[in-house]
């Protein structure tokens, strides 16, 4: 196995194990998405026009919340990089023959894996609330892939920002600045048809919306996989782009020390 994959693997194991030692983090990871799902699901359940063609609002909302979680998780994932920079763990790896790429990629991959776990939890909760995944097994797969990619797109961006700013406060400000606007510029909460024209136009270029479209099609429609494939490919391209950005900022960090 190439060194970069081996090192990425070990570093993912390290991060995952560290997170598993934070009971509060695990609780938040599981409970918070459920709260979103139950809260929004109840709040808007009477407004039938919101849900496009879905049979219930909760069915419409579930893939949206899965994606929201994934991209929020991604935007915050740079915090782990900052903590590693602050604790000089990164420098320790750099003075050893660690794969440079693995230091960055392990953070991005870890965000993707976390997103898949959360997606599965949310889908199971959705099932309990009467959601049907119309796409069947391929549908489940698409939701998982879409949320993993979405998390990785924003994790690449977040790690890049972390490596440029190297300060927690700046990282928090950036994550907040990016998170909510992108959420409201997407069809997470309401059908595209109800958006004002200009938001509809912008949302077409919003990676969050690519993920939502793919996941929602898999849950609500189930079939017509062509457009879904295009959205997933767009997300793959965006992941490559933001990961390249993170790698570039990592080189900039190395030059600065």
């Amino acid at each position, binding site marked *: 196995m190439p060194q970069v994959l081996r090192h990425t693997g*070990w570093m993912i194991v390290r991060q995952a194990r560290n997170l598993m*030692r934070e009971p509060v983090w695990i609780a938040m990871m599981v409970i918070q998405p459920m709260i979103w799902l139950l809260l929004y699901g109840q709040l808007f359940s009477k407004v039938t026009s919101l849900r496009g063609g879905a049979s219930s609002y909760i069915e419409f909302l579930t893939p949206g919340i899965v994606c929201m979680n994934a991209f929020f998780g991604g935007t915050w994932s740079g915090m782990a990089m900052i903590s590693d920079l602050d*604790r000089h763990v990164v420098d320790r790896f750099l003075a050893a*023959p660690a794969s440079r790429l693995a230091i960055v990629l392990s953070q991005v991959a870890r965000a993707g894996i976390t997103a898949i776990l959360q997606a599965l939890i949310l889908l199971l909760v959705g099932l309990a609330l009467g959601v049907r995944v119309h796409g069947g097994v391929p549908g489940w797969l698409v939701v998982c892939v879409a949320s993993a990619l979405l998390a990785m797109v924003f994790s690449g961006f977040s790690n890049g920002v972390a490596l440029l700013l190297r300060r927690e406060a700046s990282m928090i400000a950036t994550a907040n600045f990016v998170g909510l606007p992108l959420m409201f510029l997407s069809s997470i909460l309401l059908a595209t048809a109800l958006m004002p024209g200009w938001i509809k136009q912008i949302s077409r270029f919003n990676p969050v919306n690519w993920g939502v479209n793919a996941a929602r099609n898999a849950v609500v429609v189930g079939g017509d996989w062509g457009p879904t494939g295009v959205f997933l490919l767009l997300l793959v391209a965006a992941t490559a782009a933001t990961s390249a950005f993170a790698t570039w900022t990592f080189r900039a960090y190395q030059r600065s020390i």
Partner: protein
Amino acid sequence: MDAIVAESLTKRYKAVQALDGVSFSVRDGEVFALLGPNGAGKSTTVRVLTTLTRPDSGRALVAGEDVVRHPNRVRQTIGYVAQDSGVDWEATGRENILLQGRIHGMAGRPLHARVDELLELVGLDNAADRVARGYSGGMKRRLDIAIGLVHKPRVLFLDEPTTGLDPEARAAMWVEVERLAHQENLTILLTTHYLEEADRLAERVAIVSRGKIVVEGTPEDLKAGLRGESVSVELRESDGRLGEAVQVVQALDGADEVHVDGRVVRARVPNGAQAIPIILSALDGRGFPVASVTTARPSLDDVYLHYTGRDFAAEDEEHKPAEKGRER
């Protein structure tokens, strides 16, 4: 063969010339200290030698490999214990060492055996499976050393190994370093701004000041190079007339390198026993009440003053990082 060779290294960070032509060499199996106050360029030198920082110019070989041209070969042969601990707080001591071993391509039974051996060597065998967040400063430091040694490096870099430790932990660390030098058959380069640390641990010392090596030799040679003894006169009170006291001592025949440290006036004289009565009567004549007088063979403190013309403690204080930050 020399384990480390540094030739005319320079490095500039924006307005600061961190290294201004650093040259020295360390013999195989030697414990070598870079001694200097904060901001002298010790850490930057170590960061160049450990491949973390590229020098602007100059050349450096570690275990025979060029740090710029073959950084990965260098990384395989060195252990690096940074000034700031590189311990992963959320992982156990054992997990920290295991991961570092895996990065060095170790695996399986030999790796686990080595980790057990190291945990015992640094006295962490009882805390091995506790998360490092709960370790004391001294324990984290010892874990850092175990992490740096996992792959049996030929050269170990210890950047300020005892900074931030309490005196008890510092003494324990000194014993540790002495033991390592013998047991693990290592070349050790350590940096320190504690004169007594360099004196105690290092076979040879290079004094670093403002990005340059000022002088290099065994602690004994360096001290022997200064003839005479140092006299310290502690004044009972100075009433802000310390400058005047210095002038009084300076005016005396044979008194050299007179400087002040708190309420203590220090000077170097050819013979302490002869000089003390003269100094005391001169100070008394100008109305300075004296609390105590001591003489001593020259210390590395005196060596520093002699070669740089500056007081070590004052220089150290001046460049102290504003907060707990990284030294350049």
